C-alpha cells in the first residue's frame, strides 16, 4: 500500500477520526472498539468499525452486505437489504446479504430484544452512506471533477458529462478497509425510493415452494440422522441401559452415551426415531422430586428467596392519595413452542467443528460449544440457518450443542439432530412465571397520586456464553453446571423490563424482587418481563380509572406527557372508534392499553373488542386496532406483520397457555396438553396504523405489541363481564368462575 493512497483516503474522509487501514484483520471480522477520545460510532459500528466488515464490493461490481443478526422470520434480511440498497443507491435486488456466521460477520451478540434494526440496521445504513461517499470521492479524484458534480446511481458514480465509473472499478485495493466515521452523510428520507416501501420479503418464495429454507431442510452428502434421549425429568440420573439390541437395529450407526447424555445415530431419519424409542424404553433413570407443587404462581414464587432492589423512587409530598386500591397479578411459565422443534447439523473433521443452527447468537454458541468440547474457539464455526419461529431462547442452542457433541463422537460425518415435539415442550427453557403486586391511590381530583409496583421474577436470560447453558454440557460426564443467574440491568431490564411506569405519577416506587432459584428451566421469551409488567400496569390503570370514574383512554392521556406516546394512544382510540362509556351488545366489551417497549423502543397502543361466552366463559377477541410508532419505518408491511403477529401470539399466551408439571416431570408435552390459539378463535379483524417518523432513529418493534395486547384483552374482558381477572391465562374456566354462571 502506498503512502499516497493513505493521503487520498485521509483527504476524502472528513472529520477528526483517524483513518486506519489494517491488513492484519483482512478476512476476519474486525472487532476493534473506537479509541476513547472519539465519539461513539452509530449502532454496531461501535463494535465492528471497519466498513468492509459490513459492505464489500467486488471488482465485478457485485455487492455483499454482512450482518451479525439472524433471520428469525421477522423479515430482517429484507429490511437490512432495503437500508443498504437505499444508501448505496443501487437496486434492491442487486445486493447479496450474508447473515450471522462466525467466519464471515461481525459479532453482534444475539438477535434479540428488538435490537436488530437499532444495532445492525443503523450500522449498515451508516456504513453504506460512508461507502457511497468514499466512492464519490474516489470518482472525483479519478475524473478530476468536484464530488458535488457527481452522483451515485445504480451501482456507478456518474458525472454531468455522463462519464460513469462503476463501483467495481472504483473500489480497487483497500478503499473500504477503513474505520467508519462517527457521523455519516445520510440520505434525506424524502428522497427514499427503497426504504419506507413494502418491499416483498426475500425469504418467502423459497418457503412457499418447498425450497431448502430451514436448517431442518439441510442435506449434506453422507449426513447421518441423530436423536437424543433426554432424561425423563430435570434431575434424573442415568443408571443403566442394555444397548446391544439397539445397536443391531436397522440403520443404526452408533449409540452415544456421555454421562446422562444419550443419543442414537442412524443412516435414515425414521430409523433414528425407532432407535430413539427403543433406547428410551431400555434406559433406566433415577428421578427425584424436584418441582414445586403446581398451584397458583404466588405460592411458588413466594416460597423462594429474592434479592430486592428499588428501581424507582419518586416523591412529591405535596400530593397525597385519598383512595387506595391494591391488586396482585400473575403469569405462569410459558413455552416458546415453535411449530418446528429445534434442529441442528454439525460436522467435526480435521479438528474443525462446524455447526449449522437456528440460534439467536452464533458467537455465544461458538464459545459454549468450544468450551464444552475443549476446543479453541477458532476451531469452531457456527453458521446461522433459519429454523421455525424463535420467540426467544428456545431449544435452538441446545440442539446445536447436541449436534456438536454427537458429531465429535462420530468424527467425520455430518450429523443432523432433530428434537421431537415432547423434547421441545419439556426441555426448552420456559418464559419464567411472574408476580406483580400493585398499589395505587387517587387524589381528590381523581388523578393518580401514588403508585407502587413490586415484581417477583427469575432471570430472563440463561443464554449461552459458557458451556453450562447447553443441555448437552450439563448432561455429559463433564456435568458443566449452568452459570449463576443474573438479572439483566436496566434500562432494558429482565423481570423488571417495563416495570417502571412511563406515566408521570407524582409519587412512585418500583421494587424488583429477583429470584435466583429456578425450579423450572427458564430463559428469554419474547418481550421478557415486559409482557407481564405491561399487563399488570395497564390492567391496574383501568382499575384506577374505574375508581376515578374516568374513561380509560382519557385517564391514560391525563397521566402521560410523552408526546409520541400520546399520539399512538389517540390514533388507536380514534381508529377503533373509542367512545367514552360506550355500551356494546351483551357480553361484549372494549379494552385499551399502551406501552413503550422497554420505555426506549417502539410505542404501541391497542384497542380491543372482546366477546365472552357466558356458557363456557371463553373470551374471543373480535377485533383489535393498534397504533405503532417505531421511528423511521424501513418496511411498513414487515412492521405491520410483526404487530399482527405480536397481537395474536399474545392473545394465545393470554387466554390459553400454561406450562404444567407434577412434582417430578413437566406434563405439558404436546399440543393437547399445551393448547394454543386455533383458527376458530382467531380475531375477525386486526388493523395496524403506523406512525412514520422520517429521520428519527429506528425503534425496535418485534416485541412492542405483546404487553399492550394482553392488557387490552384483559381490560375488554373486565368491561364485558364486570369482573377483573388478574391471573393469567384468562381461560374460559377462570372467566366462568368469576362471572358465576
Amino acid at each position, binding site marked *: 500500500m502506498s503512502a499516497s493512497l493513505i493521503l487520498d483516503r485521509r483527504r476524502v474522509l472528513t472529520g477528526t477520526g483517524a483513518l486506519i487501514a489494517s491488513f492484519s484483520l483482512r478476512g476476519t471480522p474486525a472487532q476493534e472498539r473506537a479509541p476513547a477520545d472519539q465519539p461513539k460510532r452509530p449502532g454496531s459500528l461501535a463494535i465492528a468499525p471497519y466498513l468492509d466488515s459490513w459492505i464489500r464490493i467486488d471488482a465485478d461490481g457485485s455487492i455483499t452486505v454482512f450482518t451479525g443478526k439472524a433471520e*428469525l*422470520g*421477522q423479515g430482517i434480511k429484507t429490511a437490512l437489504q432495503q437500508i443498504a440498497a437505499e444508501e448505496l443507491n443501487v437496486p434492491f435486488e442487486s445486493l447479496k446479504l450474508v447473515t450471522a456466521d462466525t467466519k464471515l460477520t461481525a459479532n453482534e451478540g444475539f438477535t434479540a430484544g428488538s435490537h436488530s434494526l437499532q444495532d445492525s440496521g443503523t450500522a449498515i445504513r451508516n456504513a453504506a452512506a460512508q461507502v457511497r461517499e468514499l466512492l464519490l470521492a474516489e470518482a472525483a479524484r479519478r475524473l478530476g471533477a468536484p464530488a458535488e458534480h457527481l452522483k451515485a446511481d445504480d451501482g456507478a458514480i456518474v458525472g454531468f458529462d455522463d462519464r460513469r465509473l462503476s463501483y467495481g472499478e472504483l473500489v480497487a485495493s483497500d478503499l473500504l478497509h477503513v474505520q467508519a466515521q462517527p457521523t455519516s452523510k445520510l440520505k434525506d428520507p424524502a428522497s427514499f425510493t427503497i426504504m419506507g416501501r*413494502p418491499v*416483498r*420479503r426475500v425469504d*418467502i*418464495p*423459497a*418457503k*412457499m*415452494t*418447498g*425450497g431448502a*429454507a*430451514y436448517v431442518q*431442510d439441510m*442435506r449434506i452428502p453422507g449426513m447421518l*440422522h441423530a436423536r437424543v434421549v433426554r432424561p425423563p425429568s430435570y434431575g434424573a440420573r442415568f443408571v443403566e441401559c442394555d444397548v446391544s439390541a439397539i445397536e443391531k437395529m436397522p440403520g443404526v450407526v452408533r449409540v452415544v452415551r456421555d454421562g446422562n447424555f444419550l443419543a442414537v445415530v442412524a443412516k*435414515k*431419519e*425414521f430409523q433414528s*426415531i425407532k432407535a430413539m424409542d427403543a433406547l428410551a424404553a431400555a434406559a433406566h433413570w433415577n428421578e427425584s422430586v424436584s418441582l414445586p407443587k403446581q398451584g397458583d404462581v404466588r405460592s411458588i414464587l413466594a416460597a423462594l428467596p429474592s434479592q430486592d432492589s428499588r428501581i424507582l423512587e419518586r416523591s412529591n409530598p405535596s400530593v397525597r392519595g385519598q383512595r387506595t386500591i391494591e391488586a396482585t397479578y400473575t403469569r405462569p411459565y410459558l413455552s416458546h*413452542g*415453535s*411449530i*418446528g*422443534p429445534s434442529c441442528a447439523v454439525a460436522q467435526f473433521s480435521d479438528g474443525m467443528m462446524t455447526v449449522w443452527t437456528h440460534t439467536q447468537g452464533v458467537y455465544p454458541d461458538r464459545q459454549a460449544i468450544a468450551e464444552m468440547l475443549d476446543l479453541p474457539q477458532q476451531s469452531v464455526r457456527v453458521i446461522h440457518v*433459519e*429454523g*421455525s*419461529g*424463535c*420467540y426467544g431462547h428456545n431449544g435452538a442452542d441446545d440442539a446445536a450443542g447436541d449436534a456438536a457433541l454427537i458429531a465429535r463422537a462420530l468424527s467425520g460425518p455430518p450429523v443432523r439432530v*432433530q428434537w*421431537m*415435539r415432547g423434547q421441545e415442550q419439556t426441555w426448552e427453557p420456559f418464559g419464567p412465571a411472574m408476580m406483580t403486586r400493585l398499589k395505587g391511590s387517587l387524589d381528590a381530583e381523581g388523578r393518580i397520586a401514588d403508585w407502587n409496583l413490586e415484581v417477583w421474577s427469575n432471570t430472563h436470560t440463561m443464554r449461552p456464553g459458557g458451556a453450562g447453558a447447553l443441555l448437552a454440557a450439563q448432561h455429559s460426564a463433564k456435568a458443566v453446571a449452568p452459570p449463576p443467574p443474573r438479572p439483566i440491568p436496566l434500562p432494558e431490564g429482565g423481570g423488571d423490563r417495563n416495570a417502571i411506569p412511563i406515566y408521570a405519577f407524582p409519587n412512585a416506587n418500583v421494587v424488583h424482587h429477583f429470584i435466583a432459584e429456578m425450579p423450572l428451566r427458564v430463559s428469554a421469551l419474547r418481550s421478557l418481563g415486559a409482557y407481564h409488567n405491561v399487563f399488570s400496569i395497564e390492567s391496574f390503570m383501568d382499575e384506577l380509572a374505574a375508581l376515578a370514574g374516568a374513561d380509560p383512554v382519557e385517564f391514560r392521556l391525563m397521566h402521560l406527557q410523552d408526546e409520541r406516546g400520546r399520539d399512538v394512544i389517540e390514533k388507536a382510540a380514534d381508529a377503533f372508534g373509542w367512545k367514552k362509556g360506550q355500551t356494546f351488545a351483551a357480553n361484549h366489551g372494549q379494552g385499551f392499553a399502551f406501552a413503550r417497549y422497554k420505555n426506549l423502543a417502539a410505542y404501541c397502543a391497542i384497542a380491543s373488542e372482546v366477546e365472552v361466552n357466558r356458557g363456557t366463559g371463553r373470551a374471543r377477541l373480535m377485533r383489535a386496532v393498534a397504533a405503532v410508532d417505531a421511528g423511521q419505518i424501513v418496511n411498513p*408491511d414487515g412492521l405491520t*406483520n*410483526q404487530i*399482527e*403477529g*405480536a*397481537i*395474536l*401470539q399474545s*392473545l*394465545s399466551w393470554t387466554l390459553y397457555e400454561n406450562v404444567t408439571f407434577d412434582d417430578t416431570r413437566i406434563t405439558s408435552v*404436546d*399440543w*393437547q396438553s399445551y393448547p*394454543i*390459539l*386455533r*383458527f*376458530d378463535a*382467531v*380475531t375477525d*379483524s*386486526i388493523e395496524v396504523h403506523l406512525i412514520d417518523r422520517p429521520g428519527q432513529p429506528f425503534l425496535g418493534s418485534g416485541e412492542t405489541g405483546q404487553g399492550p395486547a394482553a392488557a387490552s384483552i384483559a381490560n375488554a374482558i373486565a368491561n364485558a363481564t364486570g369482573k377483573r381477572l388478574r391471573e393469567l391465562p384468562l381461560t374460559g374456566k377462570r372467566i366462568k368462575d368469576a362471572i358465576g354462571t
Partner: protein
Amino acid sequence: MTSLSVNGRDHQIDADPETPLLYVLRDDIELNAAKFGCGLGQCGACTVIVDGKAVLSCVTPLLLVEGKQVITLEGLGTAADPGPIQRAFMEEQAAQCGYCIPGMMMRAQALLQRNPKPTDEQIRTELGMHLCRCGTHMRILRAVHRAAGLMSPADTSSGTIGRKP
C-alpha cells in the same frame, strides 16, 4: 419396495412399510415442503394431498399410500412459476417464519378443489387443526380467499393439480 406417485412421478421406495410418509418424502425423495412439527397429527405442518384429500403425512404410514397419488407443495409450482395458491400467499406476504405454511397451503388447496368459493367460516373450520405460532393467521385467511379468486376451474379440478415435473 413400495410404489407411489409423488407430484406426478413414480417412485419405488425401499423403506420399512410403517415409515410415515413424511420421512419418505423428506428422506427418500428429498422434498422439503412437508415439515415435521409434532409427529402426532396435532399441528398440520406435514400436510400433503393424497388422492385429492389432505392427509397428515407424519401419521400416515407408507403402507397406506402404496399406489396412490401424493401431491406436495413442490407439485403446485416453483418460485419462478408459482401456482395460484403459492402466488396468493406470496402476494399477501402470508408468513413470518413460514414453517407452518406449506401444510396450510396443502389443506387450503384440498379445500379449494372441493369448494372453489369457501366462506371465511369454512376456511377457518378447514384450517382448524393447523397451528401457527408467529400469529400470521389473518394473512393466511386473506391468502386463501385470494387463492380462490386466482384459481381457474382447471386448477381446482381434482387430480390435475400436480404439475408434471
